């Protein structure tokens, strides 16, 4: 029985990681893509810009596919919340329920208006059609707030009391929603969504540029998408700094794992690379005082180490440290790329011409996704062994179902196929629309391909 639960716990965590890790990418596009499309569509209408209109139309087809896969992969998550984590949703379902309910409202609005937008190309008055993108964009922002508020609550649980018999009483769902972590976590996720969308869309056009496509439409597609990401990136770096410093007080063991600090100390060096084995950090480059400086704005500041909690309450420190470093490294590189773009744009009203920039921009899309996933792993694994910070252990929350190993394997297989199909279909959309435009066939209504 004990072993069954161990295997079940591992399988449940893995299944949740796969399901969420898959959905989070599509959710980013659900939040960020409508904004990118809005910029193009608005430009098309206001400046009677054919290229911008064509981009908006092309993107609406891509959005349709991404939104569909995002919607269904999100639906199964609401099954898994209860089916895998009864110890979370049983005692606390009522505490976090309101946030999910409001997220549901946001998603409903998004689903309705995206249908109207996708099907409205040839029927709705152009201006009204353009403005249907606005509720989609706003619903994405609101939806990300509500869903991240749940995660914020898991990191910073408030809005309830525990009765002497252990039951949860005095539930205040509004206090739970506006928990201490929500603001910084939500904005960090929101700007991650804009970065992922912007860099990923731009990377497609950067790749075409490398392939020799110097057309105006290709350049415009790149500039619109990359600009969104380039504006989001510096803001994201600032939010990330606030988010990390907040942890010193709020979740010191997570902070210690991220920075790989074995003992609470003052004047802690920044540990670049390295792993923690047998009580020692091995193979790291240490930059004196920098960890303390980043955390406290004082090179001699005091920062927490692993010793702030019992060894059994530490997260897997190497996973947290490395995912954090990957996120920071990629984020820094993307920041440099954004600055390069901004500098060139200020001087020449256009993107840089150096080939290196375009090579980097081609990789920026996937890199942004990797950084976002790494950041998510940092916060999720860093919270361990708790599912609800210092309230419920993940191991105590897991379902006792016997089928989880089988379902975890099945879900993995399905998502691998789904990921491949999604990429294949997106490539087909790209190829077909390009082929259509190269021969100068305007897409007539007969190809009113949603």
């Amino acid at each position, binding site marked *: 029985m004990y072993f069954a639960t161990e295997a079940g716990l591992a399988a449940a965590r893995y299944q949740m990681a796969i399901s969420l890790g898959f959905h989070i990418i599509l959710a980013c596009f659900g939040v960020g893509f409508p904004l990118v499309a809005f910029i193009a569509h608005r430009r098309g209408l206001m400046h009677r810009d054919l290229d911008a209109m064509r981009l908006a139309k092309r993107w609406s087809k891509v959005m349709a596919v991404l939104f569909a896969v995002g919607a269904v992969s999100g639906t199964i998550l609401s*099954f898994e919340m209860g089916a895998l984590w*009864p110890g979370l949703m049983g005692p606390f379902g*009522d505490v976090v*329920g309101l946030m999910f309910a409001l997220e*549901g409202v946001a998603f*409903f609005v998004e689903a309705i208006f995206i249908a109207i937008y996708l099907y409205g190309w040839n029927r709705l008055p152009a201006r009204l059609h353009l403005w249907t993108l606005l509720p989609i964009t706003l619903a994405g922002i609101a939806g990300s707030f509500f869903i991240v508020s749940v995660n914020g609550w898991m990191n910073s649980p408030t809005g309830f009391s525990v009765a002497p018999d252990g039951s949860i009483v005095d539930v205040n*769902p509004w206090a739970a929603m506006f928990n201490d972590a929500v603001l910084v976590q939500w904005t960090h996720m929101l700007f991650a969504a804009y970065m992922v969308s912007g860099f990923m869309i731009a990377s497609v056009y950067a790749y075409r540029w490398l392939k020799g496509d110097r057309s105006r439409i290709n350049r415009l597609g790149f500039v619109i998408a990359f600009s969104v990401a380039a504006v989001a990136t510096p803001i994201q770096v600032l939010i990330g700094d606030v988010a990390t410093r907040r942890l010193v007080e709020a979740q010191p063991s997570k902070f210690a794992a991220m920075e790989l600090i074995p003992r609470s100390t003052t004047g802690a060096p920044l540990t670049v690379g390295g792993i923690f084995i047998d009580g020692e950090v091995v193979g790291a480059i240490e930059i004196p005082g920098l960890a303390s400086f980043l955390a406290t704005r004082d090179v001699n500041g005091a920062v927490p180490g692993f010793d702030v909690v019992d060894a059994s309450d530490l997260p897997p420190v190497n996973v947290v440290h490395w995912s954090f470093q990957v996120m920071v490294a990629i984020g820094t590189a993307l920041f440099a790329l954004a600055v390069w773009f901004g500098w060139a744009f200020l001087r020449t009203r256009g993107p840089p011409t150096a080939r290196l920039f375009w090579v980097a921009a081609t990789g920026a899309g996937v890199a942004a996704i990797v950084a976002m996933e790494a950041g998510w792993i940092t916060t999720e694994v860093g919270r361990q062994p708790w599912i609800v910070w210092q309230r419920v252990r993940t191991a105590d929350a897991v379902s006792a179902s016997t089928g989880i190993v089988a379902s975890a394997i099945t879900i993995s297989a399905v998502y691998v196929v789904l990921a491949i199909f999604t990429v294949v279909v997106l490539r087909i959309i790209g190829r077909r629309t390009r082929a259509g435009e190269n021969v100068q066939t305007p897409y007539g209504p007969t190809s*009113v391909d949603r």
Partner: protein
Amino acid sequence: MMLVDVVLAIIWTGVTAYAIFGGADFGAGILDLFAGSATRGREMRRQLEHSIGPVWEANHVWLIFVLVYLWTAFPTAFVSIMTTLYIPVMLAGLGIVMRGSAFAFRKWAPTLSKERVMGAAFAASSFVTPFFLGAVAGGVASGRVPPGNAAGNPWSSWLNPTSVLGGVLAIVACTYLAAVLVARDATRTGRAEVASSFRQRALWAGFLSGAVALGGIFVLRIDAPTLYEGLTEPWGLAAIMLSAGAGVASLVAIARAHHHMSRVAAVVATSAIIWGWGIAQYPWLLPETLTVEQGAAGASVLISLIIAFVVAGFIAVPALVWLLSLMERGILGSDDVTTQAGSSDALIEELSSQQA
């Protein structure tokens, strides 16, 4: 207690909405499965695609709504259901994932044969998903889910007479609803021949639904006594009679091609079954083990849910009404692909002809 009953009614309204909107959506996939060969069924499949294309995502929001409200208002019942019935729950979830993705991918398939594979995945998952959801309902209704973390039997909780009844009834009722609604769409867009094919299927599925529902009463008598008892009390009986009456009326209306009438009657017949189930099971959340009152969250939570429902009513409902009315007026999703003057497409055409 009043408050919890209000929330229960909200949840049951969501269940009803999902049964109708989501049900018709699944049913469209099932009809796709039985539309015949690629060439023969072409017109029917096109009609189905036009009828559900713009609404399928919104239709399934109702499911999320029901799940979220259930876990917020009745967390113990929710986790008990989800963990005991883990297998059909995950199969239904996978069915939903496959169905939506295949539907979105289908029209981009590079070849006809690949399009057919996608279409088959869409149609087959439309067929099995309502079965699993109906089986979950049957497992709950027949009292096979005790409170607790996976406390019930993982197999017999959904492989039992009531679950099979729930699953089969879900399949035939979805098909019936979809056929009635799509027949009306097809008539409206002037495709009399397709409409008559759908009417024929609506008649068959309607007869089957009625037969399964009536026969099901005997299954419940043996397999789900608590539910059966509730159904034989006045309000339960009233729901059964209403459903039967509306079902017969809709069949007559279908046969006479009165599309508006058949649509209303079919929706009433389906809703009456859902409410009959709810009334019969009340006050049990999990029959014989957990009552509504025992399983309910605190007052502040229930009030927040009511507030959220009202907010949703002010924000999402007008939007939904607009979407449905655009479809109703044939502006979205119709097969008529002419470009309206002043639309975004018209601008693209104008600008590209200037360029050329």
